């Protein structure tokens, strides 16, 4: 398990020991969205391509799409979110994770933002 990396779409990625990548949204993203009331996730076994809007987050006010940061097969989804979508607000980097993907291409952390770079990004927003 490695340190988290980030996208400029406010997702985080974590490279797991088994080669899969866990994806969620950042603290900043959940705060911007406000109270989350529904999360739509793809099915386990589904294929997602980089750029796909494979997850949808519904807050009280609006719906937001989550674009996939990489291509691969969905090997797990966070089933808990079906009944307790507010977990994403409470613990976005932990229990509020979205999906786990087995990426098609080798994971390249250098292509993503590290914490310092991400903090700089949100500091300027």
């Amino acid at each position: 398990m490695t340190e988290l990396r980030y996208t400029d779409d406010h997702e985080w990625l974590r490279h797991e020991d088994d080669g899969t990548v866990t994806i969620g949204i950042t603290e900043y993203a959940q705060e911007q969205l406000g109270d989350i009331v529904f999360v739509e996730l793809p099915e386990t076994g589904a294929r997602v391509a980089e750029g796909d809007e494979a997850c949808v987050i519904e807050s009280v006010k609006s719906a937001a799409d989550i674009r996939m940061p990489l291509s691969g097969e969905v090997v797990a989804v966070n089933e808990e979110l079906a009944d307790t979508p507010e977990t994403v607000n409470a613990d976005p980097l932990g229990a509020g994770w979205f999906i786990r993907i087995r990426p098609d291409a080798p994971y390249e952390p250098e292509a993503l933002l590290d914490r310092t770079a991400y903090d700089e990004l949100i500091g300027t927003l």
Partner: protein
Amino acid sequence: MTEPLHTPLHALHVELGARMAPFAGYSMPIQYRSGIIREHTHTRTGAGLFDVSHMGQLRLAGAGAAAALETLTPADVVGLPDGRQRYALLTNDAGGVRDDFMVARLGEHLLVVVNAACKQDDVEHLYAHIGERCSIEVLDDRALLALQGPAAARVLARLAPETAALGFMQVARMSLAGSECVVSRSGYTGEDGFEISVPADRAESLARDLLGYDEVEPVGLGARDSLRLEAGLCLYGQDLDTSTTPVEAGLTWTVAKSRRAIGARAGGYPGAGVIDRELAAGAARRRVALLPRSRVPLRGGAALHGPDGAIAGQVTSGGFGPTLGAPVAMGYVETGLARAGTMLSAAVRGKTLPVEVAKLPVVPHGYVRGTTG
């Protein structure tokens, strides 16, 4: 793009940690630190303080003001007693709705509150059509606060005991914490509460006084929207517009008896012919409450399908109802499918989701009815 305007409470919103966003030309608080769901729930259980200073406040004066305003609305304005307020509609020639507004009589004056987004158009409309029959003054030196919720009356009575005597939709001039205010017992949340017109330079101090009470929390426009949606109240521009008629919208009670076909002051407002025909024959579609029977919120614009799969209507407002703990929406459906309990479906992101038609409002109103007047 022009910079959004600030209300007199702007600095206070920022100090309270509000997330500000442009709305109808103003920078407005969408939510504060506690978030929409907590703010919503607090308004249903305690008291929420809202800044609605973006709305337009107008004063109409002159002996002919009420009769003049009746040429633009099907409401009974001439018969509006002193100290009373009514909800009314500005109509167009097709019987559609140009705006919805509140009108109150205070002595010699009529006080009118219109939607922020329609303010400029409304003022021009009034000047153009009745500007010669009464004086029209835009009160842009006043802020408008709303104190809403079951604890609102208890709180406001501490500042002005006479507020306790106001019944629903009654209005009076009074001094609140040293400021000359106009207070009406009304609101846009479905709860008991008050709207307070206060001089702009006294608004922040009054708001701070109110927020000083334990029962009161600041509430933003996000929760204002979820509260009014549960309460079945229309948002102009979404649930009402120039293509919807009062009959379709289920607002026939805003068409006064005296203004209907055989009334004492029948017609004489834009679209009277269309509205009278619809009152007699019914409209082809009706505004209804919608309860999505899945966890997926429906949003404005989503198409509704009947049991046969054909298009049966459209969602005009939708989101999540924190008091219901479930999604809630409103929209227009064919009259034959408008009965409560009818099951429709909506297509969201390629999935077909069940939606039940329900009676408005889905959360009962908590209004306090007056015993006088």
